[in-house]
């Protein structure tokens, strides 16, 4: 993974060192930096604001209790926090789903961008807008498969059943979608590999 600016990574290491030292302010600083992005993600996955906020709390408390789990050589702090947040949100979603208490999946959510969508992206930071554009340029079937997996926590077989496509087709869509996503990042960020900036 290509290093972002040395400064950004030093900032990451510094705040985590303060957290490891038990500095409460450091958790507040981290929260101020990343909470909106984390809550954006958990809201997209869980829809219910209380569930989404619960997971937000869980994630930051986990960071507070386990600062040693972050390895700077493996990526940025934001990346680590987002991976944590998605993992916990999907676990919560699958648990709600088993009890019949999830919100219902809207298959129409994965669509070609409209004027509304473009207005929505105005609120995204530069990097988010670039990712949104890459996603919107994927063939709709690939985008839908990726979004059902990433935001919906569905497996390849479940996606096949939900969309009515054969399993083999879904596997191909997911694989090709992933490759196109990576190619798209490279094109927009013009780097060997993407990174998440602050």
């Amino acid at each position, binding site marked *: 993974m290509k290093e972002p600016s040395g400064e950004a990574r030093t900032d990451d290491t510094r705040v985590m060192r303060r957290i490891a030292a038990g500095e409460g302010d450091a958790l507040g600083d981290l929260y101020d930096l990343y*909470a909106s992005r984390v809550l954006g993600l958990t809201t997209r996955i869980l829809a219910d604001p209380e569930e989404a906020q619960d997971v937000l709390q869980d994630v930051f*408390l986990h960071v507070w209790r386990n600062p040693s789990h972050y390895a700077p050589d493996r990526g940025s702090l934001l990346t680590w926090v987002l*991976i944590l947040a*998605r993992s916990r949100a999907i676990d919560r979603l699958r648990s709600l789903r*088993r009890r019949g208490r999830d919100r219902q999946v809207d298959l129409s959510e994965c669509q070609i961008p409209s004027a509304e969508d473009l207005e929505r992206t105005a609120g995204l930071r530069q990097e988010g807008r670039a*990712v949104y554009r890459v996603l919107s340029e994927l063939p709709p079937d690939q985008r839908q498969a990726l979004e059902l997996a990433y935001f919906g926590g569905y497996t390849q077989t479940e996606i096949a059943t*939900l969309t*009515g496509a054969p399993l083999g087709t879904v596997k191909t869509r997911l*694989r090709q979608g992933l490759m196109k996503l990576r190619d798209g990042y490279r094109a927009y960020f013009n780097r060997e590999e993407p990174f998440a900036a602050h």
Partner: protein
Amino acid sequence: MPHTEFLGDLAGVAALGALDGSDRDAFEGHLQERCPECEAALAAWRRDLSLVALSVPEVVPPADLRVRLLETRRGIPASAPPRKPAAAARWLAIAAAVLLALVAIDDVVRHRSIREAQQRAAVLSARLERSREDLARKDLRARFLEDPDVQTILLSGQAAAPGSRGKILFSSRARRAILVAAELPALPPGRQYELWFIAGGKPIAAGTFDPSASGATIFESTPLPEGAAPVEKFAVTIEPLGGVPQPTGPMVLLGG
């Protein structure tokens, strides 16, 4: 299992958490035998996928959440009422057993009638039973969508909602149906949609649900009772909140 291109290609879908069946077994088995290439590929895909998280709008948390977080960190109980955590069955079983015992003692001590104490115990007992059922459904539901014998039945919009459409995924083995529907209109207060099995010409209630805000819905039915005639059709009608034993309202979807 030696590393192969096939296994390496699974890393991206594995990072999505979307592998299942033999693919998942193969990949997890392979990782257990330590493959540095696949571990690196998995980590790289997880990092790349985390960018997808940035493609959705940010949501500013309510101000009190920051306060509660920092108070919790300090070990001070939050001033806001604590959120109910997701109930694990064992926790619920222990808590319910303790509560049942306390209710009985408490009521007798306060000279309430024995009958009232029994009623309260019955309510707690019923709640415990429902959560046991919920857990029993877990395995069933997890396997349902992977059942190769699942039949797909298309439903078409009826006069009450001509623009709506849907399909039923029916597992006769599991005795359950999953409805996937689109363009279901919003309902006035006091009304819900109800799903019906039509078996031997007779409707059997299969559960009630609300349409999602945008009109698309996925809903899992209650089980088809044992001994029911073979299911010929499926229907969705509009009924009073909570549903009714036999259909009374207009039909929105029908197929079979």
